[in-house]
């Protein structure tokens, strides 16, 4: 058993979107679908202004509302806590997208897989990658389960230029995640939703 998750250090993060693009090329998601994103916001008024960068991805919640909402059993949770969706069982009802308060569920519209980032078919890369998707079903961040199973870290983690993303197991007593949160304080998104996210943030 494990509880895989991530801590994102907002002091280190520079909002560069390397994670966004590393995720894009790792997963080859169709147009406009990003499992990893960076939400930028401006706070304060001039000249006491800051821009903040919040990298987001599926929180792989322990009490995942998407899993509770899924009527077909397509959404399932691995033993290590990764929230998965089985496209063979998914009926595309999008209940999970409605249930997820983080907007981290993505529906693959009809026709989306006919063309990649062009108007005349798939590139050789897309021809390989798009075999992982099915129109009319949901897709989502798998915490790069395929990499994790091969003993690797998620794509967004290894590429991060500032080492802002720390991947690990919340249950690992020697692990870094709990230690970082204990040391610097940590918070998760929308705690009021009581989803028990496994992605935590360290303040600026």
């Amino acid at each position: 058993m494990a509880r895989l998750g991530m801590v994102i250090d907002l002091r280190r993060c520079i909002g560069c979107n390397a994670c966004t693009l590393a995720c894009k090329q790792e997963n080859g998601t169709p147009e406009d679908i990003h499992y990893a994103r960076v939400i930028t916001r401006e706070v304060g008024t001039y000249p006491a202004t800051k821009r903040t960068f919040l990298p987001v991805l599926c929180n792989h919640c322990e009490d995942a509302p998407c899993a509770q909402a899924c009527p077909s059993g397509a959404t399932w949770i691995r033993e290590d806590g990764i929230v998965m969706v089985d496209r063979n069982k998914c009926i595309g009802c999008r209940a999970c997208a409605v249930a997820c308060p983080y907007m981290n569920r993505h529906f693959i519209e009809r026709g989306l897989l006919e063309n990649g980032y062009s108007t005349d078919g798939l590139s050789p890369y897309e021809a390989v990658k798009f075999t992982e998707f099915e129109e009319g079903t949901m897709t989502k961040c798998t915490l790069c389960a395929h990499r994790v199973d091969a003993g690797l870290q998620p794509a967004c983690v290894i590429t991060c230029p500032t080492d802002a993303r720390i991947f690990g197991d919340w249950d690992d007593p020697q692990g870094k995640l709990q230690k970082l949160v204990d040391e610097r304080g940590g918070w998760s998104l929308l705690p009021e939703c009581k989803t028990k996210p496994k992605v935590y943030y360290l303040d600026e």
Partner: protein
Amino acid sequence: MAFAHAVPDASGSRWIPSTCGMCLHGCGIKVLVRDGVALKIEGDETNPDNLGKLCPKGNAAISRLYDSSRVLTPLKRTNPQKGPGVDPKWVPISWDEAYEMAARELGRVRQDDPRKLLCALGDFQRILLWGWPAVFGSPNFFTSLGNYCGGSYHPVNGSVDGSFAAINDYERCNYWIQIGSGDGFSSHLHLSGSAKRMADARMRGMRVVTLDPRCSVAAAKADEWIPTLPGTDRAFVLGMAHVLLHELKQYDREFLRDKTNAPYLVKSDGNLLRNAAGKAMVWDSKQNLAKPWDEISPESMALEGTFTFDGNCVRTGFQVWKDILADHTPERMGEICTVPADTIRRIAREFVEAAQIGSTIQIEGKTYPFRPAALNYYRGSQSHANGLFDNLAYKMFNMLVGNIDVPGGHLGVPLDHRGFFVSPGEDGVLKPEPHQLHPAPAFKYPPDSTHLMEWFPIGFDAGQLNTETLLDPQRFGLNYQPEAMLIYHSNPLWNLPETDKVEQIMRRMKFIVAIDIQHTESTQWADVFLPDRTFLESTLLNCLEPPVVTGHSLRQPVVEPLGDTRDAYDILTELAERLGFRDDWNDLLNVVCGFTAKPQYLLDPDRRYSDEELWDRYARSIYGDDHGLDWFKQHGHAVRYRTPEETFLPYGDLRIPFYFEFIKRTGDQMRKNLEQAGVPNWPLDNYQPLPFWKNSQVIDDGARGYEFYAITFKESLHTFADTLVMPWLSEVSEKDAIHGGILMNSATAGQLNIRTGDRIRLSSPAGTIEGAAQVIEGIHPQVFGVSNAITRSVVTNPRVKQKGSHFNRLLTGSMQYTDSATGGLESTARVRVEKLS
């Protein structure tokens, strides 16, 4: 399960080491390839440059390789009409026909007058090819090249310590002032590794203070953001220098006295005092007399003071600058840059305290001065019409605390593996190396080049001057009119100021040949298009401006080249052969590859070499015969950390210039040359030995009714023109308000009754642009900001939205807006603003 994702498995996938080509710098990468298809690019963790990290551009490179709008076969134009938006009616042709056409037309020009070829060459990683026009016989650069960012920056770096760029010491700096630069946050000098080093430095408590008109990433992440007006950062720094010299009286006297020419005596005419033997003189404060600089003990050498010599008044170079700065008070400077005087005083005090003047550090058994405070700067701070003064001011402010090339301080970054270009010059001072990309051109009248390179002996290639010279050639004595153009991975209609004038010149071309990956604003004017290969399909060895490492990284084909494309080296070599100058081309490569110094590697002028043969020789000539291309293919790179000896005090026992007499003397010589040639009214006012405040044309334009300033900027998603039309990158930047339109401050928007989304027009003395307003807090109220992400107008991929707020239309390409000493362009413009809807 046969997984489509990027994990090597038993099905024959493999990682191939290579070098990223999404910006000019070249981080180490590895590419996962299966069945001939590139599936994933990751940073190469064995490469100490980027430590396995990769920025978003590198992560998006696969989408460029496979972009459906790439040109994959040679093309011929069939529509004789040319212009923006005019369909060239391309038809595919064979390479032989394409070469034949290009060679015939270029051959005609070459026979007539080779200078009639205008060349727009880019592609920084293939810098070895930039000499092709010179072998053809044309000196002309019809593009902005590095001048837009570094027109004044590179010459000053080269003059101070033989470096090409500079960066503060990520590892040891404790107080980092960042001005108009994305270093460590969003751009410049190997972003991926630099971002890691900057983040580590901030985590250990390094303080960052950022000056920028806009709340850039560097400003957002800084401990303190100080908004300034564009082009006035020098005022802030001169104000701080005033505080150090006149108020706090804290500066590194020992460094200035022993490691610079600051103690050298200056006569009232601005030249150094020399004895009959021509030796620069200093003042012996014990014996109270002038002595040659090398015949005195350091302790006796006066750093400051005004003295009488032979009845004339002489001052040390240091004293001259100190006197200049006497009226550069924080109050006066603060008014110029719109920063409160108290802030200038406070930052100056914090900086000099953090510099720990007098302290030392032991590194690998050697003792060095330790100055953990430094000022770092790049384009925004100094790409201005007084850019030479900007650069001198920033360098000299660093010199005041003795931090040049010492641990913790401001470190030179060499151009490439050859390291710092250091050799003895005059008076014990190192020889200035303002030109590192080509030899300094000799003065000539009439000029040969359309961008007047012969008139910039310490400058860069001022491509922006092409419009002024070509549309008014008599004024400059230019006695020929160009007829043809070679475009190679460059986009003059996008990167030069005053697009309408660039168009006028392009209209005059009887023939244009373009080498590129995709169509651009400029290649749409071509008669023949020769498709190049992307960095994932070609070979070279790369080492360009790495901040903390050195050594080459191999770019190699990771997939079979798509379509019927050729490597640009092969294209230019074939053209050289067909034009009958392959022998001269090989000779030039012998020089630029450094083979002339190692004759066993010299190319035979009578033989044609493939790109692999060339790079194999290049590798062996540097790393030895057992380190040829095969070695690199296996190992990927020979990148290692620079040693302390290679990093610190590269000038050794030589002094570095503080009083830049050679700049003044160069100006004096230019004055003579121009007088002799009978050229009237050529400005020479920036050939000054020391920086001070003076207004630029941009500041004066305020009085002409141009109330606001316009700036352009880039962040990590984008760099040069290529990335702006990549769908993976643009779909992300389109979601960020910073790239959503023309940025303006909310208070200004309130006054002008403008809301986000309203169409607005910016008009400068040079031109106008339109776009949607994006109202934000994080920008100076007098400034409008245009992300480079919204500047392209020719977009070939159907998934990328055309934005077309082409910032460079606002800039003026003339001497009035050019640094008269370096040729650096003015990258900000004054504008009026109108609401259109």
